[in-house]
């Protein structure tokens, strides 16, 4: 019942804005092959698989049909979590802790470039009775949320813009990232307004790519891996989904998901026990809102910390050293997969020029994007 769980393998294709040379199957096969090679396992040794997808992101009515083949999971135990990769990872952790399996693989995939009507897609996630008939670009929800967040915390547009500058610059030295840029604060502040106070550059662009990780239960992990990365805590949570009654200023889902993960990991003081964070920044303000929700700083402090450089790679609490969604890209369900991947790479000392010094515990946090109020957190240690 107290079985420990570790990441023993990770594989990715890397991330690009478009990937016209490979099908989604070929892309996933590549990530899976790398993950299994990294873990030193064959699919037949893997007890079960968890895939992530949402039907209309992939363009199928039943997208889970197309998960098994490229994972080596045909005629094996596999199910799909239509959720963030970190939720699926939570599912895998439960499966391993139950004692029924020793090795479980988790898959995330984005062929975002193949989905041509993304605004309509997000709009189709709105309540059909109360919200959808307005037929407006769903970025208005992010604009409204950003406005309320700035109002409640005193955070400024400049502080949000600094998140964009930082993350896109971090991506410059992450060879996996698709949207690296070296920008000035002024350049970001002058970007075209989309939904005041949200501008074009506050919004993470999309990317394609796949991530597969292999998780194993304690003894198996130790036997198979020289450098297991332990999943000390995992948590997930959904707040009220309705626009009319949800919390618009604070990310309650992230707070509650983090509390679950902290409790499991025995973390009492996140700020001193977490060394670095990869969290969801699909919109610039989300990085700040999420940092506060994770209790890594007080409400209203995240912007100040960002301006002070505390969240830079060289800072006291590096946030999105990979470049985050703003620099790597929004990967739909795979977004949390990129977060987990980068925490694993950092903890193994494999993060290249963005490698952080002396880190032993990292936090990965996912959010399901507009218009949802669902988030997930994983805490990993080497």
């Amino acid at each position: 019942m107290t079985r420990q769980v570790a990441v023993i393998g990770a594989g990715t294709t890397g991330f690009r804005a478009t990937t016209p040379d490979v099908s989604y199957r070929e892309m996933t096969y590549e990530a899976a092959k790398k993950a299994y090679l990294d873990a030193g396992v064959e699919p037949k040794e893997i007890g079960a698989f968890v895939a992530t997808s949402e039907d209309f992101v992939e363009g199928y009515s039943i997208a889970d049909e197309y998960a098994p083949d490229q994972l080596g999971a045909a005629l094996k135990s596999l199910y799909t979590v239509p959720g963030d990769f970190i939720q699926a990872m939570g599912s895998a952790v439960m499966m391993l802790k139950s004692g029924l399996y020793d090795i479980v693989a988790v898959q995330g995939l984005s062929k975002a470039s193949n989905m041509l009507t993304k605004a309509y897609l997000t709009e189709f996630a709105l309540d059909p009775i109360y919200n959808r008939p307005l037929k407006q670009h769903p970025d208005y929800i992010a604009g409204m949320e950003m406005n309320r967040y700035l109002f409640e915390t005193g955070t400024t547009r400049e502080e949000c813009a600094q998140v964009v500058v930082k993350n896109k610059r971090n991506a410059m030295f992450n060879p996996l990232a698709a949207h690296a840029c070296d920008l000035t604060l002024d350049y970001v502040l002058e970007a075209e307004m989309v939904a005041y106070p949200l501008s074009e550059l506050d919004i993470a662009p999309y990317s394609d790519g796949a991530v597969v990780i292999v998780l194993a239960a304690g003894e198996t992990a130790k036997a198979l891996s020289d450098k297991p990365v332990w999943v000390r805590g995992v948590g997930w949570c959904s707040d009220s989904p309705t626009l009319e009654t949800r919390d618009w200023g604070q990310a309650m889902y992230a707070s509650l998901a983090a509390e679950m993960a902290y409790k499991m990991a025995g973390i009492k003081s996140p700020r001193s026990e977490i060394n670095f964070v990869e969290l969801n920044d699909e919109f610039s303000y989300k990085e700040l809102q999420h940092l506060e929700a994770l209790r890594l700083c007080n409400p209203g402090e995240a912007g100040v910390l960002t301006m002070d450089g505390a969240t830079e790679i060289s800072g006291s609490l590096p946030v999105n050293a990979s470049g985050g969604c703003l620099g790597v890209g929004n990967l739909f369900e795979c977004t949390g997969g990129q977060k987990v991947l980068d925490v694993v790479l950092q903890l193994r000392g494999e993060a290249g020029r963005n490698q952080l010094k002396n880190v032993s515990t990292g936090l990965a946090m996912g959010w399901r994007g507009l218009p949802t109020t669902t988030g997930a957190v994983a805490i990993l240690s080497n």
Partner: protein
Amino acid sequence: MALTERLQETTQVGYWTGAIPLEYVYTCGRAGEAYYRNLMNKGTFLGARCEKCQITYVPPRIYCERCFDRLEKQYVDVGDTGSVHTFTVLYKHLDGTPRDKPAIMALVRLDGTDGGVVHYLDGVKPEEVRIGLRVKAVLKAKKNRSGEITDIRYFKPVA
């Protein structure tokens, strides 16, 4: 090696196009039926009150999401006036093209409730909108109402 072959010339690249060919009719449900009938007939908004949780939902629901008590007998008329809980000025259409005139979108927290309506603001300049602004619903003429959220034309400031 993961893939034994890769396309090596741009002219080999190809794609296949398609769409999801479906249409939908969504019934408004038990609570939605009451909400929109009330809006059509009385021009006001209906909420659902959970005394246990001290919450008034707008739109109303048949249940309290927090305690799961039934609220179908707890519907209350909450009027048509409230204040701007948050807003945005939207510069593009759903298809991504720029708007000639930006739309002001807001969550209007109806007075005495914990819910409200997401809709347009009008009769006010974008730069004059503030969180907390007092607003009131402007509805279509009664005969033109069909029991949809678009029976509301917009919310406008009240003195």
